[in-house]
């Protein structure tokens, strides 16, 4: 135990801790912050999220048909607000557009395939005026957003003009019964899953795609940081001993060659510690987005995507966390193995750089919409691949440990 503790002290020295803090800060500023500061990004994403949030707060984790009918009545309020905003806008009034219905009619006329270039420019100007109307224009619209939502959006505050198309889009998807999630030429396994989704009522979850996408993109960036820190912290452990020939002394001690097993254990414990620390810190930061509101909503939703197994958003996040643990441990073991075979730091670096590139590219693919559908016809493809990678790496690691006990130390 003492040896494991001392090896961990070698990893968790002051220089490494400072390096972890600085690199994490830089990575947050350049990559991760975007998913907090610009969430949701653009329009009508902001409006879709606002409606999704409102639906979850009001109706819980599913929208039943009677609740949906109640939701439909909100459209009248939105149209009234749009009418009032148009009347109050002098530029739109100059063009004799008195209400939202007339605006839509004008839009249809000018976007007809026979419309001239001048017509289209005119339409662009009108729509720009309408789209730039502030969110709280007109009565009754602001009650659709909770105070916490209004505080969060910053520059992407929901806008009235995008609210109606977002509303209509949600209604259309719900009324179609989530049929857009299933392509007719999809394999039978997709049809079975879709039928299950419909029968259990999972599809009525009000979660929106923007929540899922933002979370998975944040996870993608976080796992790249995890790969970098794992390789940086754990790779020099054995190389520093080998460069100074200290491993020869270690092997003559009472512990003998078992020490390498303890060093590997120290790396595994440190990897779990590092991954947990990153979760706590960056997960806590991500909580600012209030995505935990959707914790009990099914991810397979008319407004989201179709996962290969029924999962709530909370369970989906947990699966992503488990995948990150698996990849973090796998890369740590790879770093340890590189460290064992690197005679000097240049050889170590020559191995670390390609390992980092390959691991980031692999994680990019695995964490891109994980569990969305059936990749290669397999239900839990992404977590399974993470598990297989870890298994292969651990088997190789155990092989190296066994080999270490037998080989001549002068090799």
């Amino acid at each position: 135990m003492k040896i494991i503790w001392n090896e961990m002290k070698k990893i968790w020295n002051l220089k490494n801790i400072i390096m972890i803090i600085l690199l994490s800060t830089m990575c947050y500023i350049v990559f991760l912050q975007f998913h907090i500061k610009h969430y949701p990004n653009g329009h009508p994403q902001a409006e879709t999220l606002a409606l999704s949030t409102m639906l979850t707060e009001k109706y819980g984790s599913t929208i039943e048909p009677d609740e949906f009918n109640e939701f439909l009545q909100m459209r009248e309020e939105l149209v009234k607000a749009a009418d009032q905003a148009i009347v109050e806008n002098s530029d739109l009034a100059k063009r004799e557009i008195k209400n939202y219905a007339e605006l839509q009619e004008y839009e249809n006329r000018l976007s007809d395939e026979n419309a001239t270039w001048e017509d289209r420019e005119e339409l662009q100007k009108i729509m720009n005026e309408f789209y730039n109307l502030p969110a709280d224009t007109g009565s009754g619209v602001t009650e659709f957003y909770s105070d916490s939502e209004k505080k969060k959006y910053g520059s992407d505050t929901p806008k009235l003009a995008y609210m109606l198309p977002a509303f209509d889009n949600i209604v259309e998807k719900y009324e179609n019964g989530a049929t857009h999630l299933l392509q007719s030429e999809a394999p039978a396994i997709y049809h079975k899953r879709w039928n299950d989704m419909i029968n259990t009522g999972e599809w009525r979850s009000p979660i929106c795609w923007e929540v899922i996408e933002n979370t998975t993109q944040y996870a993608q960036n976080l796992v790249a940081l995890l790969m970098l820190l794992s390789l940086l912290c754990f790779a020099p452990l054995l190389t520093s001993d080998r460069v100074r020939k200290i491993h020869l002394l270690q092997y003559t001690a009472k512990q003998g060659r078992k020490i390498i097993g303890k060093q590997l254990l120290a790396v595994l414990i440190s990897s779990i510690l590092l991954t947990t620390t990153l979760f706590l810190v960056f997960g806590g930061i991500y909580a600012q987005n209030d995505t935990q509101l959707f914790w009990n909503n099914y991810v397979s939703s008319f407004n989201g995507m179709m996962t290969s197994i029924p999962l709530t958003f909370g369970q989906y996040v947990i699966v992503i966390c488990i995948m990150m643990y698996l990849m973090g441990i796998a890369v740590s073991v790879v770093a340890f193995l590189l460290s064992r075979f690197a005679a000097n730091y240049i050889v170590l670096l020559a191995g670390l750089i390609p390992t980092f590139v390959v691991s980031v590219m692999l994680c990019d693919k695995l964490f891109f919409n994980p569990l969305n559908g059936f990749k290669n016809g397999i239900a839990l493809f992404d977590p399974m691949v993470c598990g297989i990678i870890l298994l292969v790496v651990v088997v190789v690691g155990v092989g190296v440990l066994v080999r270490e006990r037998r080989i001549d130390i002068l090799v």
Partner: protein
Amino acid sequence: MKKIINSYAIWGFLLVCILFNVVLILSIGIDPYADYVKKVSVHTGLQLGERFNQKLTAFVQGENLKNDNSEQLVSETNETETNFLQNEDQKQYNQEQLASETNETEANLSQKESQKWRNSEQFYQESLIQETTEVSDVFDGYDTGKIADTYVQTFRLKGKLAENMRNKYADLQKIADEKGKHDDSLSLYFAGSTYGQHHKLFFSVMRSIIIEGVLLSVLIVLFSIGYENSNRIEDIVYSSKAGRPIVMKKLIAVVVTGIFFYLLLLGASLGLYFSVNDYSGIWQSNVSSSFNGIGDIIMGFRPFLTWHNFTVLSYLFATIGVSLILILCFSLMGFVAGICIRNSYVGFFALFFVNALLVTVTAILPPDSYFLFTLMLSPICLLIKQPVWFTDGGFDILWKNFEIRGVGASVVVMAIIVVVAAIKFRKREII
């Protein structure tokens, strides 16, 4: 140099880089339409216009005569040929006819048949005719002042910054007018596949090669400088007749070796790329073709307007030239890191950290900061901006020919730092 060339680690890393590039090039794939355009260019030349249209029509006609179902196609082509010789209104009408026929043909096919149609030579012929007859000179009446105004307003640039930004685009306007006069944008390149092909070569492949070259050169430098320390022979070597000035000789050796390995990497990677994607016949196309472009989130997609007149070949050579100097900059940075930090591993990550910090600082600084524009000339930022070298560079570049200014200034600054580091090294305690 012998030590470096005998190092398995360096050769191993080079091989891994080449392997990565092989996978990258093969995964990018081949564009059959680009291949077709290249084949046609041998007969038509690269300058678009009436003569090109006539030669193209003649070529298409000749090709179609070779096919079994030539009769219908010949009559269509004859009709097309006749119409191309008529006035502009008639030409416009026939283009629309052709497009609608193509759309109608495609609309009537199932998805698989539609895909097959898209891969057919007839589709390529019709696409090429449509693209090359509809193309116009993008630099006719092109106003770069709008770009300057947009950037100044969006980022609220004031005073000297706004003036510099406007001056840059005022100078670019002269270039655009010259290009408009000489019809530089009426260059075939790869027609509709131009953006994709240009992007593949200069955004994906060249960028990957340059980054690998930088990493390779830094590893070589750190290997050489850290050799004595890692083998515990510092006290022997530095007390020899050569003494500490040996590091300056090492500097020359690592720079030469770094360039040698980079050229090996370049040769192997580009050799594979051009054997898979044949550019023969296209080399003399102008990179400022109407079919090419760059984009940013503020101005959207706009013409690929270079400060100098570049063909594809000269642009490639210019990129390689600047990349060599960039690699020299990073080699000098590696040298300083190797001298100041005896542990090569720590030295590499100190270098990595400094460059990462530079990038982070550029992300934090407000867009109207003069310091930001200066930092954009640092080697790491130039590396990031590699796809837009020799153009205006976008909203975060204040000067013309930024890449040449940047590498030039970086070499001078690094040379000064190297001399200071070498002088300090002479006095440093090695025990």
